[in-house]
């Protein structure tokens, strides 16, 4: 058999090539010149992300399946890249001073961040289960290290170990499901699987087990109940900037991968998996909201809140229509921005190495620092889904998509859990504003820096703008899916 060199559409993977290239350059610089100014590495990473964004923008009119069918270039992939690149850029802004303050500002942070981002963007664009698996592993392996980045901190180590063991365990399930899918359909390509799955000759039992196991793998990555146990520990233990990156980036990438695999490859089996995911979505919203009430640590509370938000995005998947996909894309973007804003506020909350982690330390902070307190209040309102913030618009779109798919009971459940969830957000807001501030002596102030103020400002502006004038972003998300997935 003669060897035929495959045709490689370089422009389609240009964003990922830029990210990996930037990561390698940063790694090399850090290796040969360990004392290099961290500002240079951070600037290089931001420039790399800018370059990747430029290449992504260049692909805006292209719709194709490239690289022998493994990679999709479509609206969803581009929107996913947009979310992930914004997340990565904001993470660098909130990381810089935080890492210095905690004395863990080692150079390898930036290459790891860029590599994780490249894995995430590939997952959002992957049209082949083999590539999905590789992308998940790329982002996970980088994140395991980033969670344990504060290597003298026992909590950081413990978070890394738990994240690693459960993440690797879930990867094995995902992989077993992929192998069974391959056995049943003879392919790992999503479009081929979808054609084969609709054929009567396919072994249904094999497909059921395969779909279940792949669902387990993705549910772990998005932290859906009952596969959420790793996330509070990893979120609490990880350095706060990494926590923000995980909450925004991993969730968005894993969800877009989840949507693509289930709606494209397993679309013909949706009457089998939708009821199961319905239960998972309700359980995720309920458990996330209820357990968040019991938390006394801000990062852990936000971790449970992020579990609850995973449940809301799952509504879009259960709806399984185009409105569901566009609402989920919208939600993932605005959630990424507001959760990064909330974690940026946690970083700003104290000038020294340690933030105000216990809820009690937030008492009266709004009276002493009204602007800072106002920003945190805005993000909490957005997370609770109250108007006029973007969180309200996002939830509204998701619920509308579910009603269009006749999932009324799901919307009722989601509304009830939203009310429960509002309790712990509002409780923190009450603490911030209505408690007397502690006496001045010896109490830490807040530690804003230009980069942190910039990221807080961007997040706050986006949260308000997309809450009051959401139409342009809604249109962008609708256009992303208006022709469906390619392939």
């Amino acid at each position, binding site marked *: 058999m003669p060897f035929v060199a495959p045709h490689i559409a370089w422009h389609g993977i240009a964003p990922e090539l830029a990210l990996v290239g930037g990561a390698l350059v940063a790694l090399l610089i850090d290796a040969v010149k360990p004392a290099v100014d961290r500002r240079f590495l951070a600037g290089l990473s931001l420039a790399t992300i800018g370059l990747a964004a430029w290449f992504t923008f260049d692909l805006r009119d292209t719709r194709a399946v490239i690289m022998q069918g493994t990679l999709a270039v479509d609206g969803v992939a581009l929107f996913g890249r947009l979310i992930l690149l914004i997340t990565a850029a904001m993470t660098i802004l909130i990381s810089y001073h935080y890492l210095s303050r905690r004395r863990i500002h080692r150079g390898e942070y930036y290459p790891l961040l860029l590599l994780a981002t490249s894995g995430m963007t590939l997952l959002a664009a992957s049209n082949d289960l*083999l590539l999905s698996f590789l992308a998940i592993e790329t982002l996970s392996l980088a994140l395991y290290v980033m969670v344990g980045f504060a290597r003298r901190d026992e909590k950081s180590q413990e978070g890394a170990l738990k994240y690693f063991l459960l993440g690797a365990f879930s990867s094995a399930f995902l992989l077993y499901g992929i192998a069974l899918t391959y056995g049943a359909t003879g392919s790992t390509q999503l479009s081929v699987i979808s054609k084969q799955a609709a054929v009567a000759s396919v072994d249904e039992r094999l497909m059921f087990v395969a779909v279940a196991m792949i669902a387990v793998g993705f549910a772990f990555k998005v932290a859906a109940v009952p596969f959420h146990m790793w996330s509070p520990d990893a979120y609490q233990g990880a350095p706060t900037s990494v926590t923000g990156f995980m909450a925004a980036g991993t969730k968005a990438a894993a969800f877009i991968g989840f949507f693509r695999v289930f709606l494209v490859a397993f679309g013909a089996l949706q009457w089998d998996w939708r009821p199961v995911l319905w239960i998972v979505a309700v359980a995720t919203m309920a458990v996330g909201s209820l357990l968040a009430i019991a938390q006394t640590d801000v990062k852990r509370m936000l971790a449970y809140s992020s579990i609850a938000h995973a449940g809301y995005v799952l509504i879009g998947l259960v709806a399984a229509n185009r409105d569901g996909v566009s609402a989920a894309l919208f939600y993932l973007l605005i959630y990424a921005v507001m959760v990064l804003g909330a974690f940026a506020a946690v970083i700003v909350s104290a000038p020294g190495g340690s933030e105000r982690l216990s809820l009690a330390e937030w008492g009266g902070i709004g009276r002493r620092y009204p602007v800072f307190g106002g920003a945190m209040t805005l993000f909490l309102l957005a997370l609770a889904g109250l108007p006029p913030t973007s969180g309200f618009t996002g939830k509204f779109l998701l619920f509308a998509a579910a009603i269009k798919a006749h999932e009324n009971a799901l919307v009722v459940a989601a509304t009830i859990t939203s009310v429960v969830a509002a309790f712990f957000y509002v409780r923190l807001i009450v603490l911030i504003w209505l408690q007397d501030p502690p006496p001045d002596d010896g109490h830490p102030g807040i530690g804003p820096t230009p980069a942190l103020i910039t990221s807080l400002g961007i997040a706050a502006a986006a949260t308000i703008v997309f809450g009051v004038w959401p139409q342009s972003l809604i249109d962008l998300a609708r256009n992303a899916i208006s022709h469906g997935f390619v392939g």
Partner: protein
Amino acid sequence: MNLAWPLTLGALLFSIGVYGVLARRNAVLVLMSIELMLNAVNVNLVAFSTWIRETIAIGQIFALFVITIAAAEVGIGLAIVLLIFRNRETINIDEIDLLKW
């Protein structure tokens, strides 16, 4: 050869791996159990690949990727375990319990 034999072997290996992850308390043994699960998948992939008889052996190529990823995973996993052992002199996952609820 009957496809059922290698698939049974794969399922058995995978189940032993799951049992190991759930029952073992030593982090290194948990890591080994996860490796066992990944290798069970390799058995499945190669068996399916031979059975389907495609011109491009996707299953076998996939198995090579899985082996590579498994090696990378062990590298990172052992590094994290080593870090914890240096600080706490234990790798018993029941004793690593600063973070809960």
